[in-house]
């Protein structure tokens, strides 16, 4: 009988591929976002608004992740942007291997920005790095003000939180200040945007912040060359 020390990360195979993706994005100066939320929070609509704000300045690509259908890819395609749809067939999150395969659908050398819309899920996507630069969380006001405390990991690892559907606040019982307070106590550096994608409010600050992040990445890639 013998004891063997392993001390190995169970998800190490995923992490290795995520790092390969990261290196590719870094060498091409591509800024990558991983958009996460529960189903119906407004990821695809936010993505549509973001594309319209950025596409005249940056070359964009989108990877859509869903269990089934290409509904979201069709919506994105209508905005004149390269898009690849991943159907996971049951997996509740995207992983780095799926992203690596999807990159065959792009000319990655010319991509300034790649936005990955993850499968709608507040739990599993938080565990799987895809090789992205930042994780963005979207929480809509109709989901309940208690969600940050109930799903702490998701809020801790996000760089920014978009509180969406704020136009509905007069009609529902949601204390948005509680969302903000709880989210910041989990993650004091979290950047928070209050947005209505349908009424197109709050999008300018989001656009300005995103442009700043993109330029910072591009400068860093340029210096490393």
């Amino acid at each position, binding site marked *: *009988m*013998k*004891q*063997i*020390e*392993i*001390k*190995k*990360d*169970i*998800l*190490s*195979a*995923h992490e290795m591929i995520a790092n390969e993706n990261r290196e590719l994005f870094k060498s091409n100066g591509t800024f990558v976002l991983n958009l996460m939320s529960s189903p119906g929070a407004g990821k695809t609509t936010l993505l549509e608004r973001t594309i319209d704000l950025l596409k005249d300045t940056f070359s964009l690509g989108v990877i859509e992740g869903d269990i089934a259908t290409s509904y979201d890819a069709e919506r994105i395609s209508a905005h004149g942007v390269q898009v690849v749809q991943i159907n996971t067939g049951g*997996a*509740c999150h995207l992983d780095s291997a799926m992203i690596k395969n999807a990159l065959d659908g792009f000319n990655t050398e010319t991509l300034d920005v790649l936005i990955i819309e993850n499968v709608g899920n507040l*739990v*599993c996507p938080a*565990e799987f790095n895809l090789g992205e630069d930042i994780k963005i969380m979207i929480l809509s006001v109709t989901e309940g003000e208690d969600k940050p*405390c109930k799903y*702490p*990991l998701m809020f*801790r690892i996000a760089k920014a939180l978009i509180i969406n559907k704020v136009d509905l606040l007069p009609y529902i019982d949601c204390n948005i200040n509680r969302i903000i307070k*709880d989210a*910041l*106590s*989990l*993650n*004091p*550096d979290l950047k928070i945007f209050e947005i209505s994608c349908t009424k197109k409010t709050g999008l300018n600050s989001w656009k300005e912040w995103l442009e700043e992040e993109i330029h910072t990445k591009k400068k860093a890639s340029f210096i490393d060359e």
Partner: protein
Amino acid sequence: MHEYSIAQSIMQIVLAEAEKANARKVLKVSLGIGELAGVFPDSLSFCFDLLAKGTIAEDAKLTIEKVPIRGHCPHCNKTFLIKNNLYICQNCRNPKIEVITGRELQINQLEIDDETD
């Protein structure tokens, strides 16, 4: 979380390490799972046992050490347990702390019968 696919990843590593060590049988697999990792131990054990059938890890005992969430304060250098989602230094109330444990999904050790037994 989806314990079945985690069990699949565990099996891949266990069988690879067992082969490296010339194991005839895997007797025990010791895991370290952080509280933040959102894994349900009973489900994980169930899935592991299912996947281990017909392999040298069949009937191996799976033990799970739960790793608590610990924070470290870069301001006063204290390390402390984080409870009730309070991500703030217990000593100086600095809100900008580092989480140093709690997200682990690790295989720590294997116990095997090798060819010399």
